């Protein structure tokens, strides 16, 4: 499948009363059509603002870096998102080719407008359907996401639906414009596990049917493992590791990714005590120099980690990590833990 999205050197700062805060620092990744990328990180790691940058949806005080380049590849040619200015121009990426699902389904529907009116409104903005067609499609979409009695639900308001149903309605609405890219920002976090499982299944089916790309933002690695093809791990505004899900979960390379996986309660290992990552995430106002993780890293190798920003090292063609330690290990003549080389040699990311 073809390329869908290229994010290059995304840097994003916010002007605040306390000074300029760096939220995202030189992040690059790309996504193919039909591919699901998980974006993982703790709160404050910059995963949501990264995704919102793709729609240029960040607050007014956001300042994008000079070298930031985001390209969306559509059938009629590439769109340079950073050059879009007016809200008219931005409609292409806001709800047109890109849809966004938020975490809190209650807050994302207007409370005083029926679900149906909200669904048809956006269809009429982004497509040239008339009211009747929009209604038909909306009901069909509600039905498609497993909402029973869709024509009744169509007339109801958000408060009349349960949490799981609201999130499905949100998904139905986001997908009704047939976006090329779906950004799902913690879509299952507010849901119970049994409902979460239903929503995950639904999203998997929809990727298959619609062939769109998804950026799936979550802090839950379990959800990522079950949904995504590849994963990018963020910490304090920087990408620290990215690669295919299987590889990153099985053989994590960055100390932060390792810590994140070890901190997860695993039902198969009840005897192993939970390993916390020591310390707290530093405030974005006090970003540590060098590797952003050095304040909490248990294997930091001294000066280099506290002064020099690590660049991505390729562990293999598709798995890369930004860590001095890994880089030095790999540079040694006989690497002790060389990863099994996967067969694919398709387009390594530039960095």
């Amino acid at each position, binding site marked *: 499948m073809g390329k869908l999205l290229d994010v290059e050197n995304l840097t994003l700062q916010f002007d605040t009363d306390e000074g300029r805060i760096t939220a995202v620092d030189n992040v690059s990744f790309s996504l193919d059509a039909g591919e699901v990328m998980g974006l993982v990180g*703790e*709160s404050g790691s910059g995963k949501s603002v990264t995704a919102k940058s793709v729609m240029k949806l960040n607050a007014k005080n956001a300042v994008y870096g000079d070298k930031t380049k985001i390209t969306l590849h559509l059938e009629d040619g590439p769109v340079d998102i950073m050059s879009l200015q007016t809200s008219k121009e931005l409609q292409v990426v806001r709800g047109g080719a890109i849809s966004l699902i938020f975490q809190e389904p209650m807050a994302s529907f207007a409370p005083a407008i029926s679900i149906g009116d909200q669904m048809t409104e956006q269809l009429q903005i982004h497509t040239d359907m008339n009211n009747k067609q929009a209604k038909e499609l909306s009901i069909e979409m509600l039905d498609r996401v497993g909402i029973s009695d869709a024509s009744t639900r169509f007339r109801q308001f958000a408060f009349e639906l*349960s*949490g*799981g*149903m609201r999130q499905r309605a949100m998904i139905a609405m986001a997908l009704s414009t047939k976006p090329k890219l779906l950004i799902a920002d913690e879509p299952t976090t507010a849901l*119970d*596990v*049994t*409902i*979460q*499982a*239903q929503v*995950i*299944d639904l999203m998997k089916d929809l990727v298959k049917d619609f062939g769109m790309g998804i950026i799936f933002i979550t*802090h*839950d*690695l*379990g*959800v990522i*493992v*079950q949904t995504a093809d590849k994963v990018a791990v963020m910490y304090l505004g920087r990408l620290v590791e990215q690669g295919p*899900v*299987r590889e990153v*979960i*099985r053989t994590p390379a960055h100390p932060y990714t390792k*810590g*994140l*996986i070890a*901190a*997860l*309660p*695993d*039902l198969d290992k*009840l005897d192993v*005590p*939970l*390993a*916390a*990552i*020591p310390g*707290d*995430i530093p*405030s974005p106002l006090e970003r540590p120099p060098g590797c952003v993780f050095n304040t909490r890293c248990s294997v930091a190798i001294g000066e280099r980690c506290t002064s020099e920003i690590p660049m991505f090292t390729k562990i293999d063609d598709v798995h890369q990590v930004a860590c001095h330690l890994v880089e030095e290990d790999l540079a040694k003549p006989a690497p002790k833990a060389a990863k099994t080389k996967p067969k694919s040699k398709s387009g390594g990311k530039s960095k």
Partner: protein
Amino acid sequence: MSNKPLISVKDLSVHFGIRGGGFGKKPVVRAVEGVDLDIAPGSFFGLVGESGSGKTTLGRALLRAVPITRGKLTYQDEDVTYDLGTIEKQELKEYRSKAQLIFQDPYAALSPRMTVRDIIAEPLEVMGLTSSKEETDERVREIAEKCRLNLEHLRRFPHAFSGGQRQRISIARALVSKPHFVVADESVAALDVSIQADVLNLLKEIQQEMGLTFLFISHDLSVVAHVCDHVAVMYLGRLVETAPTRQLFAAPKHPYTKALLSAIPSLDPDDAGVAEKLEGEIPSPTNPPPGCKFQTRCRFAIDICRKDEPKLDHTGNEHNVACHRWEELME
């Protein structure tokens, strides 16, 4: 430890009247219905269930923070016994110092206008547990140290702290009155995994050091599996299964517990799609289905499940389950 339970609950129900419903009878939410539960002293007791299952209400009933509709609730430590159903004024005040609550959201639970020292000291002052400012300060310092907060932290305001630190402040405040019984309601749900592990380890440490009894309310089964020694599973106001943790996770008996376990996303990339998926959602507690409350979503429901409500069966080894067909289903 004695064999007498610290908290003993018999046939507890908590109902709320709600507005609306038009003419005739006022609708009633049966948040907790006919719950029997014993919590042994020194245990780390987990209570799990989906939202709307009544787990928070049950936790609050044990603290007498909500009125009890029916049933018997007893608290018994070495010194005193309280009948929590009828407890009043002075005794209730004493009970408040013995039973405490840690909230879910560390951002909402701390007053932004008070220093951390004042936040932690407040329970002591309100309950009049200390006689001088020096004694209060001493107690605050002592508990702050246990919760890994330093003296510098005590002078600051909550906004200067991260989520994990705030939750440690909430824990310090709950523990400063030296309670015997602590209800932790979703206390790690708002935290990131890397911080969550740290707070869980701290709770566990403090529990062992101070000999506390915890009721740990959570929707996250894997967290419960790690910290709790006993687990009770709730569904629509009823307990459907209770057991020692290992046993529950190794051999769940209730179809709902099984479904909950299989719904946890696996960390193994090759272990996908074997899950036994639950259809539908939890029914409304104003209008619960007849018979077994789980029958609307249960694959194994038969006629009897739609008519009679199953009682909690003792199956040995402290493992209790409320299901008509659990024995057949084990085969």
